[in-house]
């Protein structure tokens, strides 16, 4: 299996996704299946000269430095799950600084 359980768990942590122990084996299997499938790309010999293709304009347009924010029909107080004294509120950062 190209994606081990440990690796699947590590990736889940990086992506901040809860995975319980029961679901982990199946998840690792499914990820492996998909990764194995897309790995056929490596069958094509690598060619360093091929540049990435990105559709869209060739260069960014420069926005003028003016204060004109995109309007909000209503403010964060209306859509925030927890809002107090003008701030978004989240549980204390126990494991962050």
């Amino acid at each position: 299996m190209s994606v081990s359980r440990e690796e699947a768990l590590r990736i889940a942590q990086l992506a901040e996704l809860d995975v319980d122990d029961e679901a982990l084996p199946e998840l690792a299997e499914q990820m492996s299946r998909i990764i194995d499938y897309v790995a056929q790309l490596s069958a094509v010999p690598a060619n360093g000269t091929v540049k990435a293709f990105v559709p869209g304009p060739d260069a960014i347009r420069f926005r003028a430095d003016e204060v004109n924010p995109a309007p909000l029909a209503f403010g964060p107080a209306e859509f925030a799950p927890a809002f107090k004294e003008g701030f978004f509120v989240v549980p204390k950062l126990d494991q962050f600084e």
Partner: protein
Amino acid sequence: MPPAWETIIGLETHVQLRTKSKMFCGCSTAFGAPPNTQVCPVCLGLPGALPAPNGAAIGLAVRGALALGCTVHPKSIFARKNYFYPDLPKGYQISQFDQPLATSGTLSFLSPERGIINAGVVRLHLEEDAGKSIHDRFAKATAVDLNRSGVPLIEIVGGPDLRSPAEARAYLLTLKQLLEYIGISDCDMEKGSLRVDANVSVRRAGETALNTRTEVKNINSFAFVEKALTVERDRQIALVESGGSVTQQTMLYDSRENTVRPQRSKEESHDYRYFPEPDLPPLVLTPEFVAEQQSELPELPAQKRERFVASYALSREHAAVVTNSRAVADYYENVVRAGAEPQAAANWVMTEALADAKDYQDQLRVAPGALAQLIALVKGGTLSHQAAKKVFGEVAAKGGDPRTIAESLGLIQVGDSNVVSGWVTDVLGAHAPEVGRYKNGETKLMAFFLGQVMRASKGKADPKLAQRVLEEKLAS
């Protein structure tokens, strides 16, 4: 005896650019607004929002790169730096990764220990700021304010070229001065428009390889830069000397205790999964655009210092003080242009003008023409230096014409030799014994006589003239 240990320091500075609107949206960047009032779908990270880059921020970033002598790349790419944090609304920061705006610059500064150092600037790139997390406002919760989210930043990464905490501070002050000079940032560590993280490692003297380094964060003032780095250096040296080894980790500086401690681990070292920002095409700078930024650059501090030494015959030290900020340098030159003698102008600017400015939010309250006038009055003997200082204070507070104010305060010196002779005669007449002692060799009594003449004249006598007259009369 050379030190046993060498300290290697490289600084990473984040500098907020002085624009009206944010990097990727039209929200205001004004400091001090009520929380979450300068926000929009973009900087809130709402579903469906997209970034639109600020051309002025790009211009200022290019100016910074040019002032640092960097190679400015005509094409650079924005990239996403992915990580989770409550004040990072999109769950990624738009920054630049392997194709930054500029690379390979230099910052020349005066090291307190090693003379002029040309510290390398590895890269300068554009990115957006995160919001603010406030941990002590609510119990058991963190308050998040996204006003700052999206403010334009440049990150300036210095090479491992600094060799002491004091040197690091000097580098930082020079960088701040340069960026203030070119007007791209307020560089105020208190307000957070200049932030610094430091990479520190140590090695035994004579070693050439670089050892494991730590990153020191949470340094909030220039003074703390030196303290924090000293503490971390000492910690590493002690660790290695006792047989341990330095682990790569992030250390947080605690300014109250003057200690560093490891940041509680985030489980795994960051994998930021950088990839090119798909919502933004490449950043392409035309030669015209870059040339325009170059032409907007003012005379840089180093050049100005040299010119002042050459043109105004100032010493290096005086030139440095007077060119410390563009505002002061411009002021000084205006005073000289208004007719003041350059040396005297420098003295007055360095002492009275700067002292006054310190109490009045760096305002140089006395107009250059007025200061030049004042200097001329002293030179011509109309005002004593002490009296002139008083007049300076009055002009600073209330404005007005120095001569008029001097007259109204009765400070105009008497330079009329007849009048002065009169006072001298009276004083000498009243102190015959002292005159005798003076003539017998107690020349130090001159100060006493001068004091008496000043008393008799109620301070109005021109002291230099009085002294000359005294000497004449006592010689006879």
